[in-house]
C-alpha cells in the first residue's frame, strides 16, 4: 500500500515534517514510559538495600556492627548518601563508630574513585565522604577543587578540608571565603561555627588586618567582618575598634559597627550616629542599645525624629534597652514629644516591649 502524500513538493516536505513530529512524539512517549519503569526498578532496589543497611547503620549508635553491609557496585552512590545522612545526624561516639564501619568497608577507596570518575552528584557525595572520614590522601585534590567554578562542589571541598585539618587550611581558606561571593554567607558561617572560635579567630583577624588597608578590597573586608561574628568576642574587640576608625566606606563602617562591644569605642559610635548614610546611623544606634549608657538617652531621643523610619525605630528600641530605663520613663518622654513621627515610633516600641 502506497503512503498517501501531497503532490506539491513543498507540501510534501511539510507533510513529512508533520509525520516526523508524530513519530518523535511516539518515541518520546515510549521514553517517558521506560524512564518510569527505570525509576520504579531503581526505587525498589534502593528500598531493598536500605532495609538491610539501615539496621546496621543504626547499630553504630552503640557499637561498630560485626556484620558489614553488602554494597554492590551500582549501589555505591546510594550507600554513601545513607552513610553521610547518618553521619550528619549523629554526634560523639556514634560518629566514631560510623567512621570505623566506613573504614572497615573501605569507603574512602570508593569515594576516591567516584571523585575522579563520577558525575557531579557522585563527585559531591565523594567529597563529602572524604571530609567526614578525614582522608588526607586527597588533600591537594580537594584544595584544587576549592577553585572549581561550581559553588556547590567547591563549598563541599572547602568543608571537607576543614573536616580533615581546619587549623592548617583556615588561614588560606578565609581569604577564599572572602573572595568568593558565590558562596552563600550562611554556608560559610556555618562552616566556621563548626570549626569553632578557637581555631577560626586568629585567621579571621589576620585576614581582616591584611585586607582592610588594601584598595579595592571593600567587598572582601565586608565579608570578613561578617565572618568575624563567629570569632571570640574579647579578641575581636580591639580589631573592631581599630577597623571602625580606619575604614571610610559606609558599608564597611556599618559592618564593623556590628562587632563593636567595647565601651571605650563609644565616642566614635556616637559620632557615627550622625553619619549621612542612614544604615550607618542604624548600626551605630544598635551599638548604643547594646553598650550605651544613660547619657545616651538624649541623643537617642533626638534620633526619634530622624527622617528614616528604621533609624527612628532602632532609636526607640535602643532607648528601651538602655540600662536603668523603665517603660514608664519612656511613656513620660513620649508625652513630651512634639514630633508626631517620634511619638508614634516610641509608642510602637513600647507596645512591642509590653507584649513580648
Amino acid at each position, binding site marked *: 500500500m502506497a503512503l498517501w502524500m501531497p503532490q506539491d513538493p513543498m507540501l510534501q516536505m511539510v507533510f513529512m515534517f508533520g509525520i516526523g*513530529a*508524530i513519530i518523535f512524539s511516539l518515541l518520546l512517549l515510549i*521514553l517517558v514510559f521506560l524512564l518510569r519503569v527505570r525509576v520504579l526498578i531503581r526505587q525498589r532496589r534502593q528500598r531493598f538495600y536500605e532495609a538491610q543497611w539501615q539496621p546496621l547503620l543504626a547499630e553504630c549508635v552503640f557499637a561498630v556492627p560485626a556484620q558489614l553491609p553488602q554494597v554492590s557496585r551500582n549501589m555505591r552512590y546510594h550507600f554513601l548518601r545513607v552513610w553521610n545522612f547518618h553521619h550528619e545526624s549523629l554526634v560523639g561516639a556514634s560518629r566514631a563508630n560510623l567512621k570505623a564501619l566506613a573504614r572497615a568497608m573501605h569507603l574512602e577507596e570508593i569515594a576516591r574513585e567516584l571523585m575522579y570518575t563520577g558525575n557531579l552528584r557522585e563527585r*559531591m557525595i565523594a567529597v563529602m565522604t572524604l571530609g567526614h572520614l578525614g582522608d588526607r590522601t586527597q588533600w591537594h585534590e580537594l584544595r584544587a577543587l576549592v577553585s572549581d567554578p561550581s559553588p556547590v562542589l567547591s563549598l563541599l571541598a572547602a568543608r571537607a578540608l576543614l573536616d580533615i585539618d581546619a587549623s592548617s587550611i583556615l588561614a588560606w581558606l578565609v581569604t577564599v571565603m572572602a573572595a568568593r561571593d558565590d558562596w552563600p554567607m550562611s554556608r560559610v558561617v556555618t562552616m566556621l561555627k563548626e570549626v569553632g572560635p578557637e581555631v577560626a579567630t586568629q585567621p579571621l583577624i589576620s585576614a581582616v588586618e591584611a585586607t582592610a588597608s588594601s584598595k579595592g578590597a571593600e567587598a572582601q573586608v565586608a565579608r570578613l567582618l561578617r565572618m568575624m561574628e563567629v570569632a571570640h568576642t574579647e579578641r575581636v574587640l580591639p580589631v573592631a575598634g581599630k577597623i571602625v576608625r580606619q575604614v571610610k566606606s559606609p558599608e564597611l563602617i556599618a559592618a564593623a559597627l556590628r562587632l563593636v562591644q567595647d565601651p571605650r569605642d563609644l565616642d566614635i559610635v556616637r559620632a557615627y550616629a550622625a553619619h549621612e548614610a542612614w544604615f550607618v546611623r542604624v548600626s551605630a544606634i544598635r551599638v548604643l542599645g547594646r553598650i550605651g549608657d544613660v547619657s545616651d538617652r538624649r541623643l537617642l531621643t533626638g534620633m526619634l525624629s530622624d527622617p528614616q523610619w528604621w533609624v527612628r525605630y532602632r532609636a526607640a528600641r535602643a532607648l528601651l534597652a538602655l540600662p536603668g530605663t523603665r517603660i514608664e520613663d519612656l511613656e513620660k518622654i513620649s508625652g513630651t514629644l512634639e514630633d508626631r513621627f517620634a511619638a508614634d515610633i516610641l509608642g510602637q516600641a513600647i507596645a512591642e516591649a509590653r507584649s513580648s
Partner: protein
Amino acid sequence: MTVNDWVEGAQWFFMLYFIGINTGYLMLNLLSLGSLKRYVEAHSLDDIPSRLSGFELPVSVLVPAYNEQVTIASSVRSILQLDYPEFEVIVINDGSRDGTMEALRREFGLEPFPEAYWQRLSVKPVRAIYRSKMHPTLRVIDKENGGKADALNAGINASRYPLFCSVDADSVLERVSMRRVVQPFLENPHTIASGGSIRIANGCTFDSGFLTSKGLPRNPLALFQVVEYMRAFLFGRLGWSPLNAVLIISGAFGVFRKEVVVKAGGYRTDTVGEDMELVVRLHRLHRTGNIPYRIVFVPDPVCWTEAPQKLLVLKNQRMRWQRGLIESLTLNIGLLFHRRGGTAGWLAFPFMVLFEWLGPLVEVAGYCFMITAFFTGLVSLEAFVTFMLVAFGLGLVLSINSLLLEEISFHIYQKPHQIVVLLLVVVLENFGYRQLNSVWRFWALLLWMFHFKLHWGEMPRSASWQTGPGGPHKGVGQ
C-alpha cells in the same frame, strides 16, 4: 495577485507560523533540559541534614486576602509552620465583605497594635493594624479595598525584612519552599527576584494545611491543567532562567528584594497582571539603567494551588491572564529591542509578543481560515491535512516533552497508573483543550483592543484541603 495567490500565501503563513512557534518552544525545551539536569544534580544532597548559621536572609511573607474567610486561617497556619529560621507573616485584609477579618481575629487572637506605619508606597487608607497574641510574628493589616496590587503594596510598607514573599491566600506551601526559593539570593547578591514552581492541588490530600500525598484530580479540566502547569513551569520559565530573561514570576509564590521593588514604585494597581508587570518592569529598569541583576526561577514544586474545575471559571482566569500579559508588555514596551535590553529585550520580550500576545490571534485565525478555506474549496485536501498534521504533531511533541522533563526531574506522581493517565492526558489535550484556550485568549485580546472592561467573576474555592490539626485527611476537588 489573484484570490488563489492570497489563499496560498495565507496557507503558507499559517503553516510556517505554527512551525515557528513550536520550534521556539522546542528550543526553550532544550534549554530547560540542560538547566533541569544541572539543578537536580546540584541539589542532590539537599535532604542531608545541615545546620543553620543564623545568616539566612529574613523574609516578610505577604498574604493579600479578599473574601477568603473559608481558606485564610488554614493558609496562615500552614505559612506559620514553614521550615525557615526567620520570617514574619503579614496578612492584608483588602476590605473583604465576608468574615475574613473575623476568622483571623478568632483563630489568631488578634489585638490592635499601635504601629508607626511607614507609607513608602501610596495605598488605600489603612483602617487598623493588628498583632497576634498567639504568634508574635503574625500581623494583620485591615485596609480599604484597593485590589491585590494595592494590598501587596500595603504589605511592603509594613514589612520589616529585606526580602518579601507574596503568597496567594488559597495556596498551600511546601514546608521547605522558602529555603528553596531564597537560595538564589544567598548564592548571588545580584538576585532581585526568585519564583517557585506552582502545581495543581486538586486530587492531592492535605492535613493541617500540609500536603500529605500527591494525586491526580478526577475532573478532566483540572487534569488538563496539571499537564499545562508542568509545561508552563518546567520549560516555559525554566528555559529563560539561565538567560536571565524570566518575564513571569507567579503572584502565588515569589520572593523579591524589597528595596528594589520600592525603588521601582511597587506593584502597579492599574493592571490585572500586577505580578508579571512588576517582573517585566524590573527587567526594563535594570537593563536600561545598566544595573547588574538576576531574576531566577526555581523548578522545585514548592506551592500547590487549587485549579478551576468549571469551564466558565477557567475561561475567566485565562482571559485575565492574557489581559495581564498584554498589559505587562505594553506598559514596558521600552524594553523591546532596547540597545541595552539584552536577552530579556531581544529574546524573551519579542518571543512573548509574537507567540503569547499575538499567538492566539494567529492560531485562531489559522484554524478558522484553513477550515473555511477547505470547505469552500479554496484550499486542497492535501494542504488541509498537512496543516492539521503539523499543528497537532508539534503540539503533541511539546505536550509529551513536558512530561519527559517531569520524569527526569521530580517525578511527583509516583504511582504507575498516574503516569498512564498523564500520558493519555498529554495526547488528549491537543484535541480541543488547547484550541479552546486559544479561543479564550483571542477573545481577551479582542476585548483589550476595543478597550472593553472585563468582569472577572469570582473563583469559587472548594477549600476541602482545610483540616484542623489531627483532623481527617481530605483531598481537593476530586
